[in-house]
């Protein structure tokens, strides 16, 4: 609890000409927080030293800085030893509302009151620090896994590399050649997997375990306890973080029966052809004669309903690569490639172009109509939707199916055997890939400290897997380092707070353990929740879920938010001054509001914004509090839920939706209109939508009329 709070009201950047800073100072003095109250034309310049001096000499233990958005000037106002509350009276007051208007003034005063209350309700952090194991477990010894192991070991971390086969290398070791990696990106290259294997073998801090499998993982980042089965024996190791690089497998061959795979001997998969090329002879399996007419089908991707619902660029490149194998074997040979979409991203475009330049390689779009065989066992391929006009048939020595890549996480219960309440596998999307916030945090899984890399994360080639392994190892190292310092890893990097449970009041309902998107909470034998702090991402979804509100952070709690709501002054008996509470996701919607201010977009001054860590951290009791306080409406601004979610904490917006049903029911019981509470999706890029969105909501509230509970 803050004892001595200094309050600083800045009047620069147009704040002073928009609102009466003197009145704010009066309000600050009246709050009697025990610390100095100061104003300046620009606290971000030399006057920042005034705040520093107050902290050092006056014993100020918390500061309220009413100035710009907390998203800017973080270095200047980052006083590490005290609690800092930034009251945003620039972007969200002075820049987005009419100057010198009584409603604008009232808004700034409410924000200052809320800031002071927030400071009073916050406690200093008690970082959770324990000695961490500086070892990375890498599961899978293919291109990505080897690269991750090399990278982590060279960074000075211990590595345990677990490979289920007898030899390292994975699929990379089965390839004849790899795609061009060097300019001018035209010549196929040898795989360098042998170099990587010997590199890993030569490093003293890498422990390689082949014919081994991870049987169980328990614990938390920094202290995962891992059971590994190796040749009938089990070993127990402790590791700090895990890289999941278990790779891929070709899609089931029975899925390709319509293409004659398994029926006609001369229909093979791309892996079969790779093996033939590695042996040095591409021939017809039926009679061992060299194959001179070879067609490649890209049979993954959308439109090929029987198979994978997605297509990667890898199969396109594989077909191009293998077409050159055919041409290199014989000058008389022709290779035909039929594709739905030819995907050759980045520098691979040069490779595509160089393959095309060979007159013996013919490419066309096309849909396969049928596959048959003639009397010589040559394959007869029938293709429609080509650009040649009409359906065509073509006789072939070999038909090669570029089969799709399936992540290993799709099949089994996972290669990790997680001893987590929420399941043994890392949560996956419906395609089997590890679920993560793909745009912002691609390597992360929904299990903190476990990072996926390579083809298990996304269909990718050798070069990309190598890079991916390196990237994931850096994430693993970051996780070890951050959790050693008691800090959140991501997305709230550096956050020292974590949820604490007031267990006396716990009803053991288990909702927090169910709703945590990251499986941070386990149940003990009494069915009480137990937090694995380093697994936690500090989103507060458990705090939003708890029906008895026993979950709090040192600087974020239901009590704190509720007190901030109650700090707002509600004008009574004035229909022209409605009050709307906006609980705003601080990851996307709050910066969008700032941007609206930066662009000087004007929105209603009746809206009081409280940033929340995630909409999922909004406990339904807060809405009840707001309504009973007299707010006429409550807006919840957050990210898009659902399959293409934008929520940084995966399920926050989705969980809020389910809670809203209860809220609307409660409103109904109180004879209040359900229109008073509205969830709005707002992406970070959509600041231009804000004025219309909020005005529309205010319009609805005006129509519904003032909250009848005002003044009670």
């Amino acid at each position, binding site marked *: 609890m803050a004892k001595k709070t200094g309050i600083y009201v800045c009047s620069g950047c147009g704040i002073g000409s928009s609102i009466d800073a003197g009145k704010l100072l009066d309000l600050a003095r009246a709050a009697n927080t025990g610390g100095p109250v100061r104003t300046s034309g620009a606290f971000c310049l030399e006057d920042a030293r005034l705040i520093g001096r107050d902290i050092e000499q006056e014993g100020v233990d918390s500061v309220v800085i009413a100035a710009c958005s907390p998203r800017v000037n973080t270095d200047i106002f980052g006083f590490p030893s005290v609690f800092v509350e930034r009251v945003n009276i620039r972007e969200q007051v002075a820049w987005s509302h009419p100057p010198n208007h009584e409603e604008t003034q009232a808004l700034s005063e409410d924000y200052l009151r809320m800031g002071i209350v927030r400071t009073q309700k916050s406690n200093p952090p008690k970082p959770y620090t324990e000695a961490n194991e500086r070892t990375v477990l890498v599961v899978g010894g293919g291109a990505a896994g080897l690269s991750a192991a090399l990278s982590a070991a060279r960074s000075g971390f211990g590595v345990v590399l677990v490979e289920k086969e007898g030899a390292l290398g994975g699929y990379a070791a089965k390839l004849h050649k790899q795609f061009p990696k060097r300019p001018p990106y035209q010549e196929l290259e040898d795989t360098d997997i042998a170099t990587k294997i010997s590199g890993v073998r030569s490093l003293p801090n890498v422990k390689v375990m082949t014919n081994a499998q991870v049987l169980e993982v328990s614990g938390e980042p920094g202290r995962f306890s891992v059971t590994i089965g190796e040749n009938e024996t089990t070993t127990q190791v402790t590791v700090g973080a895990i890289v999941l690089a278990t790779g891929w497998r070709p899609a089931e061959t029975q899925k390709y029966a319509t293409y004659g795979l398994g029926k006609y001997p001369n229909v093979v998969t791309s892996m079969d052809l790779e093996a033939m090329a590695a042996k040095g002879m591409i021939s017809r399996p039926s009679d061992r004669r060299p194959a001179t007419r070879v067609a490649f089908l890209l049979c993954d991707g959308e*439109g090929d309903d029987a198979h994978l619902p997605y297509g990667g660029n890898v199969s396109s490149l594989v077909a191009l690569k293998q077409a050159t194998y055919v041409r290199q074997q014989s000058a008389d040979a*022709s290779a*035909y490639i039929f594709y739905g979409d*030819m995907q050759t991203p980045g520098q691979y475009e040069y490779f*595509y*172009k160089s393959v*095309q*330049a*060979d*007159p*013996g390689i*013919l*490419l*066309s*779009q096309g849909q396969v*109509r049928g596959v048959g065989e003639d009397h010589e066992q040559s394959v*007869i391929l*029938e*293709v*429609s*939707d*080509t*650009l*040649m*006009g*009409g*359906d*065509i*048939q*073509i*006789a072939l020595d070999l038909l090669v199916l570029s089969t799709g890549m399936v992540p290993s996480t799709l099949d089994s219960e996972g290669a990790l055997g997680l001893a987590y309440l929420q399941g043994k596998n890392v949560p996956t999307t419906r395609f089997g890939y590890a679920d993560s916030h793909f745009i912002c945090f691609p390597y992360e899984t929904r299990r903190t400290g476990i990072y996926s890399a390579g083809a298990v994360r996304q269909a990718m080639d050798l070069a990309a897997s190598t890079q991916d392994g390196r990237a994931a190892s850096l994430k693993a190292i970051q996780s070890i380092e951050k959790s050693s310092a008691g800090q959140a890893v991501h997305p709230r990097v550096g956050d020292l707070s974590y949820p604490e449970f007031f267990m006396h009041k716990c009803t053991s309902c288990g909702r927090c353990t169910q709703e945590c998107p990251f499986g941070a909470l386990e149940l003990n034998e009494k069915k009480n929740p137990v937090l694995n702090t380093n697994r936690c991402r500090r989103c507060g979804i458990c705090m939003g879920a708890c029906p008895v509100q026993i979950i709090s952070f040192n600087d974020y709690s239901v009590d704190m938010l509720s007190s901030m709501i109650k700090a707002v002054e509600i004008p009574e008996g004035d229909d022209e001054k409605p009050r709307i509470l906006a609980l705003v996701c601080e990851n996307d919607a709050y910066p969008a509001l700032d941007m609206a201010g930066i662009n000087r977009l004007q929105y209603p001054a009746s809206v009081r914004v409280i940033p929340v860590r995630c909409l999922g951290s909004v406990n339904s009791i807060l809405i009840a509090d707001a309504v009973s306080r007299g707010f006429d409406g409550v807006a919840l601004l957050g990210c898009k839920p659902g399959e293409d979610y934008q929520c940084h904490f995966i399920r926050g917006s989705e969980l809020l939706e389910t809670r809203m049903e209860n809220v609307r029911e409660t409103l109904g019981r109180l004879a209040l209109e359900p229109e008073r509470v509205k969830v709005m999706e707002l992406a970070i890029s959509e600041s231009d939508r804000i004025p219309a969105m909020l005005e529309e909501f205010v319009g609805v509230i005006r129509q519904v009329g003032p909250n009848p509970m005002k003044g009670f």
Partner: protein
Amino acid sequence: MATLIQPDLEFKREIIGLDAHDLSVCYQCGTCSAVCPISTADNPFPRKEMVWVQWGLKDRALGNSSIWMCHQCGTCNTYCPRDAKPANVMAALRDYSIAHYAVPRFMGRALSEPRYLPLLFAIPAVIFLAILGWLGNLTALPRGQIVFSKFMPILYIEVIFMAAIGLSMAGAAMGGCRYWKAMSRSSGASSNGQHPGRHIVSTLLDILKQSSSSAARSRPGPGRLTRATCTRPTWQSSGGLWAWWLRRRPWAWGSMRSDISHRGRSGIL
């Protein structure tokens, strides 16, 4: 019914050799057809010709009238994102067609390659020198008043020129017939149940009345062609008349139209 195709890579290499080195890099995006002033929704020119040549489909590429519609404006070359130079490929195809269908064949070949140019000039020169030599006019010029017929009698000239005209008309007719048959073979002339000859009369009438219903004019938007932009270059181009009645070409595309109505992909054609 699907046709069995047999890619003729030799043909592809020959076209490449006719100054169309870049045709392989075409990735069939269709930009050429989008910008081509004579391309229509049901005749994606020169895109389909590009893919035919890439796949060595000689019969289709040669038995096809569209290449003569092209007035070599070069717009496709300008806009091609891959520098595949479709206009050069069309020129190469025309070149190849002339050599391929010409009667006698060696004349077509000689006309399509610059290195035979001295030979082509040499043939009439030798004939005339031979006649002059036979008349004895090479060694001594005729005396008296200067009259051309004394040097080269009119009858000789008439016989030679009439024979040349006769031969070239016969050659043109035979070449035309061969081309006609090739088109019939490759696109199924009888598919719409009408004899192509029927269109000659109406096409000629259109030309005379300058009221063409050219399909090229149906292109919508600001790029819509007026008769002036559409017809003048065609008139000026060598096979003007030829091109005009071919432009009617419903027999040529009657069958193709149904073939290219693909689901999904037809939008970009």
